């Protein structure tokens, strides 16, 4: 019984379907960036509280602004999913 020929391999350098490993790496990279930003927010909260208790209200507001911008960055990283680089691989029929 003749079997189907294998699908042609793409030429070197041609964009191919994003592998699962590549997608995982991108996700882990986003997690690392978000964790770094959240740590910065934690720092801003402690310094802002210190500034407020010391009577420096303006400084506390600047730090609050920094924290809000950080949250915007985090939200963009979390909810703006990048589009896949190519079409998904067609499913093979069993």
């Amino acid at each position, binding site marked *: 019984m003749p079997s189907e020929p294998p699908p042609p391999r793409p030429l070197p350098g041609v964009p191919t379907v994003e592998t699962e490993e590549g997608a*995982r790496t991108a*996700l*882990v990279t*986003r*997690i690392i960036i*978000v*964790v770094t*930003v*959240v740590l910065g*927010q*934690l720092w*801003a*909260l402690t310094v*802002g*509280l*210190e500034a*407020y*208790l*010391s*009577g420096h*209200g303006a400084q*506390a*507001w600047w*730090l*609050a602004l*920094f*924290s*809000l911008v*950080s*949250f915007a960055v*985090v*939200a963009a*990283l*979390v*909810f703006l999913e990048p589009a896949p680089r190519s079409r998904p691989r067609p499913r093979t029929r*069993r």
Partner: protein
Amino acid sequence: MSTQPRRYSGRPTEPDQRQAGGGRAHPPDPDLVAERIARLTTDARVTRRGYLRILAVLSGGLALGNVAVAAGAFRRRTAGATNEVVISEDAAAIPVGGAVRFTYPTERDPAVLLRLDDDVFVAYSTICTHLACEVLWRADDADLYCPCHEGHFSPRTGAPTAGPPIRPLPEIRLEARDGAIVAVGEGRITEEEDVVDAE
């Protein structure tokens, strides 16, 4: 015997006994079993995307907290208390250099009355203006001392003299009434009003 190669279908295979006519009367639905297995294995751990969303919620909470701090949501008591509290019925019984702890304006606000000289009494809130630890009176050094971050305040004026505090301790206005010392208010007062003659 079948010559077809077996392929992995992703579903649990049925027992061979069923094909032979034996086995259970009501075999479980393979789709249902597969769904339950998938649900159990996915609910048991947090995925990377789920972890990312948790971090986003945490980030939003930190941002809100920072805004709340700047807006004064955790504002401590304000100057303007007018209630009267008798600190000591007999002011003469307090030795020079001695102190009497009391609370003002509420039961949750610690304060201290100091007798700096024969006829000089001062009182301050003992909530440190740095991070709200309780300030202690050290008679040997004539110093108001915050043990949390090594803050020091002048007993004469309540102003910070060393350490991280920047603002002075809130002063409490005093009045002498028939030998008793009464706290009558809170807030910044002038140097002259700072001193109460107990005589």
